[in-house]
């Protein structure tokens, strides 16, 4: 058994249980999740000395959020890199705790994307705010977020022979996990999913095409929701209510449009190796993979880039019954039901950390037997164009 550095651990988690929360603000969701995550850890409001948030909310979020909560943090980090922000925050919290800057880091997220009727995936062209070089070169063309990811899928199919049926297996496994998770079933009910049940490959490929080659069931939901994660120094973690889940490796990376770039390769190809090296573990040792599933193609590309299989072999890799929680083959994928079938309020990164922690505590509704190692990989932005990758590797004692 390798001996990783154990500078910081996830000691408290909370996922807001509702996916449809009219009349509640994102700040209220954050505060409620913060209180519950601290309770989960056996810590209190006054213990928090580091605040990490992706500044979704009012301007100067680091300041306004500290005031709203009533914290006087020693560390404020408002890195905002889309859905992977929370993996970046976890990496930064570990770094800040190791440096002695804080002992109890709180990560918060809250969103009312569903109640606000934000058409995140299917509305493109010209937003408010000042123009940028990039907005001026993209707004006229009607590239929806879904079509952006679809262009990666199309290219992946062209280069490697990947099929829609192979992509569908990711949605099938994720839905099977969702059906075991009462919160996910409630989410699909509240968001008026049709025909809430386990699905088949045929269901996915026969669902309505949204942007070729991605079908409705290749796409995540748009929910309300939020969550909080508490990360603590070893001396704090020892006295917490639940057993610590150690952050043993992290990696951060960016990627964007470049002339000649291979868009089938994501930022995970940079962030992954950094995290593996620090953690001193290999992909084939990972029991649970929490991979950002904005779309099925996102997962496929990231499994490859993180080294679970070689580039271009993702289609064959997911074609086995590998992804289910009860499969003898590793890793199990998105055991909470994922963004596809449980929770995606716009940025899903915090839920990857939360479900990975549940697994390493033995608390998942699709518990992998004796799970010891997990990975959480967040993706932020637009996969075909500018995006981030944040990788966190977690271990239990």
């Amino acid at each position, binding site marked *: 058994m390798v001996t990783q550095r154990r500078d910081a651990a996830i000691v408290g988690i909370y996922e807001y249980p509702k996916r449809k929360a009219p009349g509640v603000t994102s700040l209220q969701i954050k505060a409620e999740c913060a209180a519950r995550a601290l309770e989960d850890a056996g810590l209190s409001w006054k213990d928090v000395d580091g605040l990490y948030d992706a500044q979704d909310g009012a301007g100067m979020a680091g300041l306004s959020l500290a005031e709203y909560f009533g914290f006087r943090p020693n560390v404020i980090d408002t890195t905002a890199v889309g859905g992977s922000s929370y993996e970046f925050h976890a990496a930064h919290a570990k770094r800040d705790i190791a440096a002695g800057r804080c002992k109890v880091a709180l990560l918060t997220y809250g969103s009312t994307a569903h109640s606000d009727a934000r058409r995140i995936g299917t509305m*493109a062209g010209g937003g408010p705010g000042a*123009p940028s070089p990039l907005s001026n070169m993209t707004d*006229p*063309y009607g590239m929806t977020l879904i079509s952006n990811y679809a262009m990666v899928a199309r290219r992946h199919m062209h280069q490697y022979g990947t099929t829609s049926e192979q992509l569908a297996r990711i949605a099938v496994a994720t839905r099977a996990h969702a059906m075991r998770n009462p919160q996910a079933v409630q989410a699909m009910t509240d968001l008026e999913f049709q025909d809430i049940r386990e699905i088949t490959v045929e269901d996915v490929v026969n669902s309505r095409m949204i*942007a070729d080659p991605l079908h409705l069931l290749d796409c995540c939901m748009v929910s309300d929701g939020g969550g909080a994660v508490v990360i603590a120094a070893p001396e704090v973690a020892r006295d917490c209510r639940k057993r610590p889940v150690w952050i043993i490796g992290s990696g951060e990376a960016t990627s964007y449009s470049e002339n*000649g770039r291979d868009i089938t390769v994501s930022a995970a190809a940079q962030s992954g190796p950094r995290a593996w090296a620090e953690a001193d573990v290999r992909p084939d040792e990972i029991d649970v993979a929490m991979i950002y599933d904005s779309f099925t193609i996102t997962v496929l590309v990231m499994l490859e880039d993180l080294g679970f299989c070689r580039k271009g072999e993702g289609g064959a890799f997911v074609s086995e019954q590998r992804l289910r929680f009860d499969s003898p083959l590793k890793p199990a994928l998105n055991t909470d039901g994922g963004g596809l079938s449980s929770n995606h309020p716009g940025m899903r990164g915090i839920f990857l950390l939360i479900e990975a922690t549940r697994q390493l505590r033995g608390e998942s509704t699709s518990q992998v037997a004796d799970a010891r190692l997990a990975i959480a990989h967040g993706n932020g932005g637009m996969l075909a164009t500018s995006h981030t990758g944040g990788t966190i590797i977690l271990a239990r004692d």
Partner: protein
Amino acid sequence: MADRPQPRFPEPDTQPFWEATKEHRLLYQVDRDTGDVVFFPRRHNPKNGSSNLEWRESKGLGTVYTFSVVRLNRHPAFAELGPYAVAYVDLDEGFRMLTNIVNVADPTRDIHIGQRVKLTWLDQSTGIAIPVFEPA
């Protein structure tokens, strides 16, 4: 149908590009020292930080790198359009641009990766023209 979303100004990096579209000229930039091709337009070369760039005009011939046919865009300018293709095209001069592929009978069948395409223009009431591509 509502106008397409337009580029907005002042935006100094992309303004020369859009000005040239009024004359149906597709511009890109080249680093005078290294020959690096720069796109999207900006004041510096993202490979080295140099501002010694010049504008050149593309011949408007390229190859489809990837594409998707959008079936659902709730933006009023696109909602009524029917299925349309967004694409990345690799221009022969070495730059890749986001665009649309137009003038095909059925975008779900008549577009493929590797297809040769040529430049055409969508004139806008604002005076600019949007560069798009059609089968060569």
